[in-house]
Every structure is written in structure tokens, then in C-alpha cells.
């Protein structure tokens, strides 16, 4: 049945109400929220320290200098942390199965994925977004790239596309747990593994890994390729830098496949009821 415009507004209002309740719940435990936030800033800082140490010991690595590497780090972390904030809790799926909240979701007139996505929002991830934004603001002037219309468009495309790519990974990681109920560690290798891969120039990886993170789990689309496109570098073999404009396409493909896996995961659950 075709949804009318009014119904769509209603759906948005529903999700806004659900998310709003999560925000209030988190802010009502102020001390623990602040502690979580600081811990996230710490994680972001230590990740940055690793990248910084590696790149400051050499003039150039994988075709990037230290400031360009900072841009890669910043883009990879902004997108990953925003995705984590929005849908990072999907890897808690086995918990929902165990406590029966998944059954409760199935008894409500909303899509299960929409309900799961809005069942939590990890505001503490703002800490990591903050670190990445600071790194970006400091590094950008040093790279000497002009902040023109092209650069702004490319950055917007990269951030939207990258967030969508990482979000798809989180949903995929959740969906796989319909089959692997104890597989949280394993599926984390998709999300956190890709996040790590996205932080470094793909030229550092041997060809098979480069292909894996280029075309299977398209992590290089998130930050590395857009930065190459910004600086005008040609890119490594098999990954031309103009692909940096195409992260939304990579995201669309990732989402299409992820949603297929999700749907068959829900079917598997209602099929087995385990």
C-alpha cells in the first residue's frame, strides 16, 4: 500500500519519539554519561596517537604526508563514530533475542530494523567525533588544499557516503548474528576491522587486502579515496582516486546487500525461533 505524505510524517514522528526517549534515558545518568564520553575521547586520542607516530617518523607513507594522513584519520573517524552512534548497538542483537525484546518488536506495527536502530543511540560517541573534527580543523590548513566548492562537495559526499558505508557494516554485523548468536567478536572484525583499514592509506596493504577493503568491504571509499581526490593524487593500481566521488554508490551497494542479509536473518529467526 502506498504510504501517503501524512503517514510518512507520522513514521518520522514515531522514530523521533523513540530516539528522544533514549536520549533522555542517557542524559538522566549524567555521571556515567560523562565518564563514557571521556572514555570515548580517550579511545579517539589513542587511535590518533598511533597514526600520528607512524606518519611523523617518515616524510611520506603510502603516498600521503602526515597532514594528509590526518585528514584520512579524521574522515574515517567522523564517519565511523557517527555510524556507531546511530546503529553501533545492532551488535547487541543476541541480547534482544535472549531477553525477548525482539519478540516485542515483532508485535509492533513497525519494521524490526527501524525499531532496533532507534532502540538506542550512543551519544557518548560524540567524544570520538569531536576528536576527529579537531584533527581535521588543525590538519586542513596544513595540507594547502583550497577550501573551494569542489572540496566542500567532495567532503560532504565523503562524510555522507562514509557514514552510510559504516552503518551498513554495523547492520550487517547485527544481521549475521541471527545465525551466529555467539558471534559478536567475529562480526566486530567487519566493523572495527574496516574502521581500522579506513584510517590508513590503502597502498600500505598487500593487493588482496586492498581489494577486500576496496570492493568487498568498501572501507577505502570512506576516507582514503576522497583524500586522494582532494589532493589530486592518482591512487594505487585498481583504485583510481576519482572513485573518491563514489562512496555513496559503494554505500548503496553495501546497504542493498546488507538489507538482503537482514531480511533473511529475520526470516531465519521467525523460522527457527531460537
Amino acid at each position, binding site marked *: 500500500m502506498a504510504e501517503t505524505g501524512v503517514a510518512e510524517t507520522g513514521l518520522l*514522528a*514515531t522514530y523521533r519519539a523513540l530516539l528522544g*526517549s533514549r536520549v533522555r534515558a542517557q542524559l538522566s545518568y549524567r555521571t556515567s554519561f560523562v565518564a563514557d564520553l571521556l572514555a570515548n575521547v580517550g579511545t579517539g586520542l589513542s587511535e590518533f596517537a598511533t597514526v600520528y607516530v607512524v606518519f611523523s617518523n617518515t616524510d611520506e607513507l603510502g603516498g600521503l604526508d602526515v597532514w594528509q594522513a590526518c585528514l584520512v584519520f579524521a574522515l574515517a573517524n567522523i564517519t565511523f563514530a557517527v555510524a556507531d552512534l546511530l546503529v553501533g548497538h545492532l551488535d547487541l542483537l543476541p541480547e534482544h533475542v535472549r531477553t525477548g525484546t525482539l*519478540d516485542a518488536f515483532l508485535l509492533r*506495527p513497525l519494521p524490526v530494523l527501524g525499531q532496533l536502530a532507534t532502540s538506542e543511540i550512543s551519544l557518548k560517541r560524540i567524544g570520538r567525533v569531536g576528536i576527529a573534527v579537531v584533527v581535521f580543523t588543525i590538519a586542513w590548513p596544513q595540507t594547502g588544499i583550497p577550501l573551494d566548492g569542489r572540496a566542500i562537495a567532495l567532503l560532504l559526499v565523503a562524510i555522507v557516503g562514509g557514514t552510510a558505508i559504516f552503518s551498513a557494516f554495523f547492520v550487517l554485523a547485527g544481521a549475521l548474528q541471527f545465525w551466529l548468536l555467539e558471534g559478536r567478536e567475529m562480526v566486530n572484525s567487519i566493523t572495527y576491522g574496516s574502521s581500522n583499514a579506513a584510517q590508513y592509506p590503502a597502498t600500505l596493504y598487500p593487493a588482496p587486502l586492498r581489494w577486500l577493503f576496496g570492493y568487498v568491504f568498501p572501507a577505502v571509499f570512506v576516507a582514503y579515496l576522497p583524500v586522494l581526490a582532494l589532493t589530486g593524487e592518482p591512487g594505487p593500481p585498481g583504485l583510481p582516486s576519482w572513485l573518491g566521488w563514489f562512496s555513496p554508490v559503494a554505500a548503496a551497494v553495501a546497504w542493498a546487500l546488507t538489507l538482503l542479509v537482514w531480511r533473511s536473518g529475520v*526470516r531465519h529467526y*521467525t*523460522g527457527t*525461533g531460537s
Partner: protein
Amino acid sequence: MSALEVTDLVREYVVRSPGASRFRRRRSVVRAVDGLSLRVAPGESVGFIGANGAGKSTTVKLLTGILVPTSGTVRTCGLDPVTHRRDLARRIGVVFGQRSQLWWDLPLSESFRLLAAIHRLPPGVWRPRLDELDDRLGLGEFLATPVRQLSLGQRMRGEVAAALLHSPELLLLDEPTIGLDVLSSERLRQFVRAERAERGTTLLLTTHDMGDVQRLCDRVLVVDHGRAAYDGDLPGLVRRVGARRVLVVDLREPIAPREVPGAELLAVEEDGFRLRYAFSEATTAAAVLTGVSEFADVRDLSVEEPDIADVLRTLYATSVGSAGRSEA
């Protein structure tokens, strides 16, 4: 249109158990629901009873679209619950006694606000409805309390109100009174009766509690090994298994007990102040009482209904699953 229409419903589970070697596991198929057929008319109230593992909860999940049938068909409110899960969700209310559908870390009132948003009920509809539910269930005193701090009885009242906020035409209660004290379960039953009397809501109730069935259900469906072992009213079930009721009389003076025609003296208790007589449908409580009054001065009396567990045990022992399979 039937509220529920189930035909030859089968649901199997694959159970994997450790096999001979570490990597090979034995696969065995268990039939939780095995050829169940039933039809429930709108406005009926059906008690769905059976031992643990008889297939009750699985059936409720199949009726609501949480589980997909292995074979057979289900129509709930005329809809296929799997393909029309969301449409169906607007028309039914479900309470799983052992699992909460409320937001545990928020005040109870928030759960209602969110459910109203989920069902897209305008404030003009859900606020008066909540007032009405609050009025009858007495939620007011703990509406502002976070759900995780509620007592079981309070939480269950909240769960039932949550399932009814959108005024569903069919209410499915899966063990709603489990773990509740006598007062709380009685209060809940009174509420469900009033709600049904007013709105004509169809009710399907799974329970182990005879009191639930007696107070709430016009019809009883006994499932055993995933099949209907009995479908009819409660007195009929009791007759069918020949279960006996017990007349308990308290006497003013202890007296040497005597046999009463049509009844069996089960026990003499309280130093002879209390006598227990079991009697079947062949006679009546009044006749047994008259018999006792002939030789004793009766101060007080009560009639004990047969224990549902005993009734079921007798039924399973006699039917072995196949007899009395309901015709839809």
C-alpha cells in the same frame, strides 16, 4: 469472519545436540505443534491450557507472526500473521507473562507515550484511553516509577494496559498471572472481565491457573503434544475426566464421621472439626450437604474445584493425545 482460524497447523523445531564427535552434532526434529485446528469466533474467550511443552506458547507465537508455521494455515483477524505482521499488530494486543514489552529504564508513563507514537494514536484518542485503563487498573500510583523498579504485580498491570492501549479486537495473554499473588491476579482478572464486557474483545489465554480459566473463559482448549485433546466448556472437561469436586464442611462439634450417599469421605481434619467429601457430577453439593447435615451441625462450608493439574493428568492419561481432536 473468525477471530482465529487455524487449520492443520504444524510447527517443528530442529534441535541440535552434541553427537558422537566434537564437530558432528545430532539433528533431531521436535514437533511442538502437531496438526492443530481451531476456530475462535469474535467475542469468544478461550482458555488454552496444557502442560509445559504442550505447544501453547509456540501456538501463540504462530498466531502473532513471531514464528512461521512449518505447515498448515493461520488466520488471525482474517490476516496471515507472517505476511501481514504489521497490519495485524495494530489489531491485536499480546502479553507474554515472562517477558516485558515495556521500556525498563523509563517511567511507566513513557512506555504508554511511546506505544501511542508507535501505533500513531493521536493524543485525543490515547490519553482518554490511558485514563480509563489507569482508572480500572490503578496505575496512577506508579506511572512515574521506572519500570525496572515496579513489583511484578504492578508491572503486569502495566503490561496489560500497554497491550490494550490501542484498543485491539483480540487480546492474547500468555500466562498473565504467573508469579502473581492472589490479590493481584484477582484484580487483573476482574479488569479483563470488565474490559471484555464493555468492548467485546476476543480473548485467548494460556495459563496453568484454574482460577484464570474459571473466571475468564467460556471455552477451554486443552493441548497435549501439540494437538487439541479437548475443546469445550470447563464443566464438560471436568465431566469428561470424571474429576470430583470436594465439599469441605466445618462442624460446631467434632462427631464420628459417617459416609454420605454419592460421596466419598476423603479426610477428617482439625481434630474432627473438618470433614472432606469428594463427589462427582452424579450428585450435587447441596445433596451432599443435606446428607452431612443429617448427622452433624455444619458451621461453615466450601466447595473445592478439581485441580487443573489433576484434571489434565487424567485427561492425558486417557486420551493419549489423539482423542477429542477438535473439528474446525
